[in-house]
């Protein structure tokens, strides 16, 4: 049987991305809090960790983390709009386009500023 068959569409992909990013963030959070707690008890270990985190591989992993956060945050906003706003699909598409346009403009302004 073709197990992926009925799951090959954008809405299911959005659902899966939201779930997977949520689980991955849930796994990350305890580690994050543990590292923060080092500041209170073992500052020298925290400094060691921060030096270790300067490595390019860790920087790349941080990009992955920000990606997960962004995907999960926007996935949640999407879900709330989908379920809680009694708008038509066209209205939601327009709202999403407006937000995307605003982010593009603001992002461009930020990039030119820094």
């Amino acid at each position: 049987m073709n197990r992926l068959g009925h799951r090959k569409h954008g809405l299911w992909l959005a659902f899966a991305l939201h779930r997977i990013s949520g689980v991955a963030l849930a796994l990350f959070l305890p580690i994050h809090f543990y590292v923060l707690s080092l500041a209170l008890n073992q500052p020298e270990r925290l400094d060691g960790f921060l030096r270790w985190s300067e490595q390019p591989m860790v920087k790349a992993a941080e990009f992955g983390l920000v990606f997960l956060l962004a995907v999960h945050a926007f996935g949640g906003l999407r879900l709330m709009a989908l379920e809680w706003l009694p708008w038509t699909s066209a209205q939601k598409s327009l709202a999403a386009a407006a937000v995307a346009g605003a982010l593009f403009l603001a992002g461009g302004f930020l990039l030119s500023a820094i």
Partner: protein
Amino acid sequence: MNDTGLAVSNLATATEELSVSVWRGDQSGGRFEQFTVPARQNQTVLDVVAYVQQHIDPTLTYRFACRVGMCGSCAMMVNGEPRWTCRTHVNNATKENRLEIAPLRNLPVIKDLAADMDPFFDKWVGAEGVHHPSRSRHDPIAPIDPTSAHRIEASEGIECINCAVCYAACDTVAANDDYLGPAALQRAWTLYNDAKDDGRAAILEAVSGKGGCHNCHSQGGCSHYCPNELNPMKAIAGLKRATTASFFGRKGNS
């Protein structure tokens, strides 16, 4: 007569063939069986199934009635996707010349391609998807304003043909035996918005329970596959809002 005869003979001498695997079995289990059928320029998946039954194996069991997308009885899994087979052209469904036909997902199998629709319709009733009369036959007919917000919302869902394609497309149905499913919940939402229906409280009660609308994960398979392009996911979102508003003591109006 000649023209018709020629056309038939052209079809009959078609040399190209299509390999199709059809699920055979019953509730105790089964397997896919290979058949070779003539490849026609214009044929639906249901035509292929009918050809196998009429020309190769008369014991093949399947269900159909109208053949024009009205009755909702011929839905099957085609290459893993739920489809109304009478309106699905073979060329649009085959992948790499492969056609795999199975009974609808998420329902018990009676035999071969015929799924048992009882659980589907039981849930339809379980969601209070039945008419709750507000007047008797002796009262005047209630005037309906077709432009009112409630009527527009109700009209969006009335073209459902009960084919259970959405039910087969839903992973929440697959994971939760109690879940009422997209079709039953959409029916509930349609009646909830119908001025002629007097069962709003009963509907909200039915759809806010254990198998109700809040189980929906908004995966959207129902809306993606609905052959009549209805949007059960939107209807379920409406029920989520209405049940929540009712929980907080507000009269939901959308």
